């Protein structure tokens, strides 16, 4: 897809989500994050636990109210005031797939009722027969069959449950799906099944995905572009091949070099960029660049000013002083 014909589906601008913890402390889970998602693409969001990637996803879909900033879906503000009916039409367009297929399905409902819940709320089926047919169709789309409809969640394996979660998300015919770690609870061979299914559905239905995960190799596989988050900030965003081949931010470089590769020869001869120390607390993050306490290139500038979110190359965004034109760090790599 060329740059010209790409149409923005989602615009996230300076998004902030702060949580109050205790009397005077504020946890800045997401702080000033901006990115766009284009129609029909998959944007991957990676980072370690506590970096705010899930909070970003949940704030976009309005499960959390944003503290500041805007999320525009197809031009309309997600967090603006909406009447119940406006909210309803909006909710139909955006759906979510959750991480834990064991906790995200109500154990007391049959699969049919779980999948049809959205259909019922939005009145998408005129008769119970139509409702049933839609459910059967959805089950088949995700690789299950009719006979599964009257069963309960406990009768299914993890991979099958995740398929049910996908069928539920598809039930209202959404355009945009946020998948929050959809495969991390699954076995390797089952992960591949679910990822293949998601890619197939995207092709068939023109879906747009926000794919949140910590498994970098899987994210690279499914995504067109990937954003890397660290401690509530987005530090780098680029096309997935470019990001993996030429990471610019020191954190991305370290993160990529930490992934163990299933190849003994490579593993034996690999030099890792070690990240020293531990993740600082998001309640009292470091001044300036948040990664500076663990960064091997950190200088005084990094402590005093937060790096700008800048386009270092075409379509390759990074927040790091190394790529500032004005500031000369002396250690260009």
């Amino acid at each position, binding site marked *: 897809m060329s740059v010209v014909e790409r149409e923005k589906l989602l615009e996230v601008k300076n998004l902030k989500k702060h949580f109050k913890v205790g009397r005077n402390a504020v946890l800045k889970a997401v702080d000033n994050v901006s990115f766009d998602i284009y129609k029909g693409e998959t944007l991957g969001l990676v980072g370690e636990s506590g970096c705010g990637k899930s909070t970003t996803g949940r704030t976009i879909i309005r499960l959390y109210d944003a503290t500041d900033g805007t999320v525009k879906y197809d031009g309309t503000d997600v967090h603006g005031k909406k009447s119940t009916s406006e909210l309803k039409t909006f909710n139909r367009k955006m759906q979510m797939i959750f991480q834990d297929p064991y906790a995200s399905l109500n154990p007391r409902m049959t699969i049919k009722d779980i999948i049809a819940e959205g259909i019922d709320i939005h009145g998408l089926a005129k008769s119970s027969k139509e409702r049933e047919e839609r459910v059967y169709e959805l089950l088949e789309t995700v690789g299950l069959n009719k006979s599964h409809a009257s069963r309960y969640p406990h009768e299914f394996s993890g991979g*099958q449950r995740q398929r049910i979660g996908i069928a539920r998300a598809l039930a209202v015919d959404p355009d945009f799906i946020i998948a929050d770690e959809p495969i991390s609870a699954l076995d390797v061979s089952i992960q591949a099944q679910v990822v293949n299914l998601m890619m197939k559905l995207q092709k068939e239905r023109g879906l747009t995905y926000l794919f949140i995960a910590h498994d970098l190799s899987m994210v690279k596989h499914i995504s067109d572009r990937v954003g890397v988050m660290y401690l509530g900030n987005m530090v780098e965003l680029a096309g997935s091949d470019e990001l993996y081949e030429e990471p610019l931010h020191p954190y991305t470089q370290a993160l990529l*070099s930490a*992934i163990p590769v299933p*190849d003994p020869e490579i593993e034996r001869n690999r030099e*890792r960029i070690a990240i020293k120390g531990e993740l600082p607390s998001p309640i009292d993050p470091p001044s300036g660049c948040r990664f500076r306490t663990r960064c091997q290139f950190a200088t005084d500038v990094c402590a005093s000013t937060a790096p700008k979110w800048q386009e270092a190359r075409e379509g390759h965004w990074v927040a790091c002083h190394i790529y500032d034109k004005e500031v000369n760090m002396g250690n260009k790599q």
Partner: protein
Amino acid sequence: MKRILDVKNLNVSFHTFAGEVKAVRGVNIHLDKGESLAVVGESGSGKSVTSKAIMRLLPEKTSEIKEGQILFEGKDLARLSNREMEKIRGSEISMIFQDPMTSLNPTMTIGKQIMEGLRKHQNLSKQEAKERAINLLKLVNIPNPELRVNEYPHQFSGGMRQRVVIAIALACNPKVLIADEPTTALDVTIQAQILDLMRDLQEKTGTAIILITHDLGVVANLSQRVAVMYGGTIVETGTTDEVFYNPKHPYTWGLLASMPKLDAKDKELLAIPGTPPNLLKPPVGCPFAARCPHAMQVCTDHMPDATELSSTHQAACWLLDERAPKVEPPEAAVVGGAR
């Protein structure tokens, strides 16, 4: 090399309301002094049960070692009394668990938890044990060990807790260390730190490691030998190079092919269709037959024996029989290309 652990024809069953679950069926593994063996497989493949059987940590009421021997320096651990086993567990063989959040006692200081094993097995005085504890914390790279030793688990991050768990496991200089998914609950950068630490410590102490994991990347990083488990049996075993570069079992192919490669261009992942067998009614034949793209009639009827491919490499598959058709592994399962 000296063999320290030899598991022969291990069979473990669980008694449930639904009937007998045959979780481990005829597993043979061995471990030499100072080497590291990885046991890989999906959930339900029996890898954790095997390790718990070696440690004799299986629930006594509901499970049973039906058959087989677990020879540790000539003693059969499967037949030891609980009293005798207590002397070995934590001192000669110790274990690292998956979740550092739940494997530490939140109401005890870190120091006390490290000292517990030392005091029990080595009859150290309180003072001596505390000194050892501080040294152990230093060994696993915890900053300010003199202060940290008096702190509680909640004051440590996930990665540091796992370091503490490793310190506890190594306290009595065990001959065998069983690490059950030691890095699964951790982030990649922390995982890299812990793997480095484990490799480093193995060089220093000469402890033999059994690494239980589902992550082939971790295996390639840490182990010299690999055993691939599926449906309660070992389907392939060999040196890490043999299993990664010359895999012979279709399940191993499937595992290797279903992992996305960082350097590969977008290809569809080769998923293994279907789900693992139900071990309440384990299949008579090869456990992988139902999901295997190359399955023949004989596969569903008879369990294949392990075929010797080299002195270290074995695979249990009918395709290796001389009468079977020649099948090449799928392209996606080829690791590292030319070799």
